[in-house]
């Protein structure tokens, strides 16, 4: 039984997929991984699902926003900003 059948290669590929998708693998490791992918349809399918899941995360925009900023909270922030500017000028 070869390594592919026992899933050893699949496991090694599995461990390196984020680095592969983030283009952070070394050229040699990348080439090795792609050779495996060419002969392993289940791994290709898995890579595609992971790629889509990551894209989904990256494209996610939260539906919920915080409540509108109260005048009091805005004032507190503005005071902190002004104080910081004044302290910097005094230095």
């Amino acid at each position, binding site marked *: 039984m070869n390594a592919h059948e026992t899933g050893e290669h699949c496991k090694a590929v599995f461990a390196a*997929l984020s680095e592969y998708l983030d283009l*952070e693998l070394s050229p040699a490791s990348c080439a090795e991984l792609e050779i495996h992918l060419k002969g392993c349809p289940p791994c290709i399918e898995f890579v595609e699902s992971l790629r*889509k899941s990551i894209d989904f*995360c990256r494209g*996610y925009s939260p539906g*919920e926003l915080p409540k509108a*900023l109260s005048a009091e909270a805005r004032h507190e*922030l503005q005071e*902190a900003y002004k104080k910081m500017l004044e302290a910097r000028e005094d230095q």
Partner: protein
Amino acid sequence: MDRQLEVELARRLLAGEAQAFDRFVEHFRAKIFHYSWLMCGQREDAEEVAQETLLKTFESFHQLKQPERVRPWVFRIAKNVCLTKRRRSIFAPSPAQELSLDALMPSKDHHNGGTKIEIADWSHLPEDLVLKTEMKNELQAAIRALPEIYRSVILLRDMEQLSTTETAQILDVAEDVVKTRLHRARLAVRKQLDGRLRDAVKVVAI
């Protein structure tokens, strides 16, 4: 808003241009709120974290020597505020819990001399808007379900699109740790979404 615009707003604020203030506050308040809501679990806590983070940001804004680094700089403050808040709350951080790679691998089927993995059909994910809304809730749930050492990494790396180096600096861990955690977090999220997609496919099939 892309990072270039954030940097521009930070530069203008540092130069004393108060007109940039409201845009900066509105933009980062929403971002920090979202991060801390997924980290803390409570809407009220997330609003307080956002306010406290912005307050600390303005108090120490003169220490921001490189405006290009404004996003990681604000998030480092947010992470610390969030942590302090959670230590005091019933949602106190739990002991670090590890995700194992083996548990995140898809299950395999060996028959007829070939190997098959059990996986949902992901091809319709981007097109189906109804499914996408449901999946958005599922994504939030998947992220909330992650142990927090993984949750913070996926939020910063994939959602806030900070670099590995920036994320490592924010979380005070080595870059390799960020990479390992990110990979496991992504696999765990993929696994949960995969299960949800399979349910959806089953519903369609009936």
